[in-house]
């Protein structure tokens, strides 16, 4: 597959078209129907959660939030391919993959409400917290990959970044180190066409991102990131090769950020309605639903029912997060070091004395 879709051949790996029709039977996966239906349901859940979170933000109930809609196929496919022991190294726009790894929506809400506790990921195994400094997390993925190789473990790292991140030095250092060290890492670039407001053509003069893998001596492939099946196959193949000791793969998942960068941003300033409508035709949910309908695996009625159910579930977890309670003073200090330094403890005591004084004045 990686030979046939060598980035130098300038081909994009795509298995279904915009109408949900299979256009490449050679690589079309033999997946159980229930997995495909589950993928759609998970995408629908992620989108419902996103839409609702944006409206909570508008109501002033949560701070800045980066929506995922339009990019669900990538995260959901990754979520299905990742095993429990595999590592996920997120950027911050991979909601579906986080949920698949066992992170709760409540934790995601807590994080964006301003609690570090939202990064504990209590029931998730091998997931790093979201990384705000762009592309810096990819190197962490490579370091984890080194540990996997050193300890001869059967694990793979899935490390995410956006198209803007590929302009950062850390992207290049990470892919280069991964090539030299031959570590089991799958880099997933969500090329959603925009770094906040900067269009992809302003990020690089190269013909896509997958082609950058060639210079670092790792496998690369450009995939239609809005095609669930293509993502599922590309990720599975890359993970399989990584498990066999065959090193890293750079997957460029071509997609479109349908929403804003974050809730603080207004895309109407830098892109046209026409452009958005053009990309709407490739929407990953619509395409997968068309496929499912053609196979009689899913109906609009089911969708309506599920959406109502999901909205309630999102609301339930959001309210739980809203009722999380006050932020204890200890939590400001206690996690910085294994043992709290004397000066930090004194600062905490000073602050507590002030609070007592303030309380007494009331």
């Amino acid at each position, binding site marked *: 597959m990686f030979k046939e879709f060598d980035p130098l051949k300038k081909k994009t790996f795509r298995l279904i078209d915009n109408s949900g029709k299979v256009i490449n039977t050679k690589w079309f996966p033999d997946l159980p129907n229930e997995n495909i239906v589950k993928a759609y349901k998970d995408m629908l859940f992620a989108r419902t959660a996103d839409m609702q979170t944006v409206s909570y933000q508008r109501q002033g109930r949560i701070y800045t939030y980066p929506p995922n809609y339009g990019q669900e196929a990538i995260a959901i496919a990754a979520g299905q391919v990742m095993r429990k022991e595999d590592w996920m190294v997120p950027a911050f726009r991979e909601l579906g993959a986080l949920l698949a790894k066992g992170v709760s929506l409540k934790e995601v809400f807590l994080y964006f409400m301003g609690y570090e506790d939202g990064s504990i990921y209590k029931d998730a195994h091998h997931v790093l917290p979201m990384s705000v*400094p762009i592309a810096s997390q990819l190197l962490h993925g490579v370091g*984890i990959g080194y540990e996997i190789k050193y300890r001869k473990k059967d694990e793979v790292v899935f490390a995410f970044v956006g198209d803007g991140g590929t302009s950062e030095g850390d992207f290049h250092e990470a892919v*280069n180190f991964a090539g030299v060290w031959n570590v089991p890492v799958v880099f997933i670039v969500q090329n959603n066409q925009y770094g906040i407001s900067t269009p992809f053509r302003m990020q690089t003069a190269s013909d896509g991102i997958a082609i950058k893998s060639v210079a670092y001596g790792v496998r690369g492939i450009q995939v239609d990131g809005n095609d669930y099946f293509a993502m599922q196959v590309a990720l599975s193949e890359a993970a399989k090769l990584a498990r066999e000791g065959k090193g890293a793969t750079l997957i460029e998942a071509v997609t479109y950020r349908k929403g804003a960068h974050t809730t603080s941003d207004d895309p109407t300033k830098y892109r046209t309605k026409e452009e958005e409508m053009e990309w709407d035709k490739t929407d990953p949910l619509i395409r997968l639903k068309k496929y499912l309908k053609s196979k009689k695996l899913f109906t609009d009625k089911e969708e309506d029912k599920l959406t109502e159910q999901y909205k309630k579930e999102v609301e339930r977890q959001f309210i739980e997060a809203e009722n999380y309670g006050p932020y204890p003073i200890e939590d400001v200090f206690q*996690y910085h*070091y294994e043992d709290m330094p004397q000066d930090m403890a004194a600062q905490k005591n000073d602050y507590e004395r002030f609070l007592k004084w303030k309380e007494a004045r009331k």
Partner: protein
Amino acid sequence: MVNAINDALDIKLKDDDSVIVYGEDVGVEGGVFRITEGLQKKYGADRVFDSPLAESGLVGTAVGMAAAGLRPVIEMQFSGFTYPGFNQIISHASRMRNRSRGKYPMPIVIRMPYGGGINALEHHSESTEAIYAQIPGLKVVIPSTPHDAKGLLISAIESNDTVIYMEPKRIYRAIKQEVPEEKFSIPFGKANILAKGNDVTVVAYGAMIREVQKAMVLAKEAGISVELIDLRSIYPIDRDTIAESVRKTGRIITVTESPRSFGVASEITQIVTEDAFLHLEAPPKRVTGFDTIVPLAKGEHHYMQSGEKIFYEIEKTVKY
């Protein structure tokens, strides 16, 4: 000191297979200062090796290794080459424990030769300990003797927090000292009183200890009794030892080779102001580099602190 650092690495590599040593030229060559000489041969190229030439890559991969349970000890070839890796230090190594509420501690040691006095090129002479000491989540230590170099490095590797371990390269091979062969560690946050005295407290660390000792010969001739404290740990800082000494001597001078403003000497001045205010008989003095870039080799002597310069300040403070 070179042998003592090598010895500490050797002991920990032997003792714990999660210790991984890597950096630019540390493998076959053993590092530009030969600190890691012989270790690759002894422990293999998967435990001691050359990394690609990229400091962000070095620190960033160490963050990942630490998250996965290894104990990376990485070498920055010179402290002045660390800046491309600074984002990974300040944004991740120092923060991951707090960000993950303790789920991912960061047992990383970042070794870096620092300081001037070796007639080096630009970017090879600065002392940046105050920059690191300002970053929440990091520990910063600096040995001044082979004995401390070994004990502090063993503590650093065993620490579950990221440690900036700064090596005064000017005295790498300047001091001969018997160092115990076995494993021993020196706790962080504990200064060492190198000389007892009554008239003035001098706090220093790294290569400046030797310069203070030169000044003490002159002070003794002048009848001035100096208490010398080797700070050893920049953060956490041993404020109790400093304050206790000043309560006795009433005077304090801090000697560093870093720029003066917003530096370690200023911090120490504040510590004695808070903890020994009523005992002070003279203004706390900062004997440091200027707020300038370290000049290249021909001009460097203007910037560096000498025994004579330190004695000049000691005399002024005692006579205040």
